[in-house]
C-alpha cells in the first residue's frame, strides 16, 4: 500500500474540539442559528448583541469564547461611552454622525465575524439532527434591554455632567 507523504496538505488535521457535538446544547438549551443572528442583533448593538452572542457560545459548548465575547462587549460599550462623552464635552457636532456610523460599522463587522466563527460548530451540530431555537423573542428582549441600558447610562452621564459643573 502506498504511504502518504507527511507534508501532504490534504492530510493535515482541520477540526478541533469545537466541532464535537457532545458539548453542544449539553445544558439542554439549543443554540440559535448564527446566520440569522447577524440580522436579528443589528438593532441591539452593541450590548444586547454581545450578550446574545455570548449566550450562543455557551450553548455551543464554548464557555471561554462566551467570556471573551462578554469582556469584548464591555470594552466596546465603555469605548463607545467614552467617545460619546468626549463628543458631548467637546461639542464637536459635525463629527457625531461619522463616529456613530463608524461604531455601527465596527459592531456590524464584529457580529459578522462572530457569526462566521460560530457557523461551523453550529452546522456540525444541526447536521447531527439538532434543531435551532428561534431568535425572534431573544432579539426583541435584547433590543429592549439595549435601549433601557443606554437610557440608564445616558441619565448617569447627564447626572455626572451636571455634578461636575
Amino acid at each position, binding site marked *: *500500500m*502506498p*504511504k*502518504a*507523504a507527511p507534508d*501532504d496538505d*490534504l*492530510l493535515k*488535521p*482541520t*477540526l*478541533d*474540539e469545537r*466541532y*464535537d*457535538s*457532545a458539548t453542544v446544547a449539553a445544558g439542554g438549551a439549543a443554540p440559535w442559528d448564527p*446566520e440569522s443572528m*447577524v*440580522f436579528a442583533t*443589528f438593532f441591539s448593538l452593541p450590548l444586547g448583541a454581545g450578550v446574545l452572542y455570548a449566550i450562543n457560545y455557551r450553548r455551543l459548548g464554548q464557555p471561554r469564547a462566551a467570556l471573551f465575547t462578554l469582556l469584548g462587549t464591555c470594552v466596546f460599550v465603555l469605548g463607545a461611552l467614552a467617545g460619546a462623552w468626549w463628543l458631548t464635552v467637546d461639542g464637536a457636532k459635525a463629527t457625531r454622525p461619522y463616529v456613530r456610523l463608524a461604531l455601527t460599522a465596527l459592531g*456590524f463587522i464584529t457580529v459578522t465575524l462572530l457569526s462566521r466563527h460560530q*457557523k*461551523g*460548530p453550529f*452546522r*456540525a*451540530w444541526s*447536521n*447531527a439532527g439538532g434543531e435551532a431555537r428561534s431568535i*425572534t423573542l431573544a432579539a426583541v428582549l435584547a433590543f429592549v434591554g439595549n435601549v433601557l441600558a443606554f437610557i440608564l447610562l445616558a441619565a448617569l452621564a447627564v447626572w455626572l455632567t451636571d455634578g461636575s459643573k
Partner: protein
Amino acid sequence: MSLVKAPLMHDDGSNSPEAETNAADRALTLAEAYLESGRTELAGREIHSALGARPFDERLHFMAGRIALVREEWDEACKAFEQSLELDPEQPGANCGLALALMNAGRRTEAEQAVLRALQLNAEFAWGYEVYARLLYETGHLKKARKLLAKSLELEPDSASAHQLLSVIEAERQDSEAAKRHADLGLAHAPDEASSHAAEAVRLYAAGHPFRARAAIREALRIEPDSAPLREFYADVDRSCRWIYLPMYYWSWLVARTPGGRVTIWFAFAALYVVRRVYKVESLLLDFVVLGYVILMLYTWVADMLVALWIRLRPAR
C-alpha cells in the same frame, strides 16, 4: 458501505487448514450475504456466534462494526472497529469504518484522526478521501472537502457516492453547472440508488426549481420509502411548493445569492428611504417599492406559521 468491504478481500481464507478459520470464513460470507439483502439481524447473529469461537479474529470484529454501522448503532460500531484495530492496527478500512462511526456519534475530532490514520496507511484509498470529505462537508469546510473528493474521483472515477456529494457541495457553493454535471454522473453510475435522486433533488432545490426537486425526491422515496432523512427532506421541499410559502422560498433563494444577505438588502432599502426623505424625492414608484419591502418583511415573519397551518389543512401526499 463499499468502504468497509475492501480489507476483507485480502484474505479469502481458502488456504487455511484450520476448521475454525473455515467456520469464520463461512460466517463472514453468510453475514455479507445477509447484509446485502438487508437482513442485518441475521448477519449480526452469525458474526456474534462466530466471535464466540474466534474472539481474536480481527475480520469478525470488522464485520461486526460494518453491521452496527448499517444498523446505525454508532457506539457498538466504534467498539467493534476498535477491537479489530487492537488486533491489527494496519487496516485502512477499519480506521475508516471507525471514522464513520465516530462522525455519526458526534465525535468529529477523533473521527478525523481515524480517517487520517487510514490515509496514512494507504494514500490511494479512494473511500478514505470520501469519508474525510463527508466529515469536512458536515462541518462546513467546503473547500477542502471539494479537494478531497477530487482526489477520491481521481483514484476511483466511477464512484457514484463521490459524485453525489460533490454535486451537493457545488449546489451549496451556487455553482449550478458543476452541481448538475456531478448529479448527472451520480445518476449515470447508480440510477437505482435513492441517494442519486436525492442529490439531484438537492441540486434542483438549490437552483430554484422546487417542483422538479419534489419530483426527484419522490423518485428517491419510491426506492427507499422508509428513509427518515428522505421523508424529512421531502417535507421541507413540499412546504416550499405550497403557494403560501412559494414567495418565502424565492425570497430566501434571492437572499442566499446576495453578498451580505438580508443585511445588504435591508441597508439598500433603508438607504432608498433616507435618500427619498433627505432629497424630498416625490416618486410614487419609490413609495411602492419601500411599502412592498415592508409588506414582504411582515410576510417573512409569519410565513412559517401560515404554511404550518396550511399543511395541517392539506397534508403532504
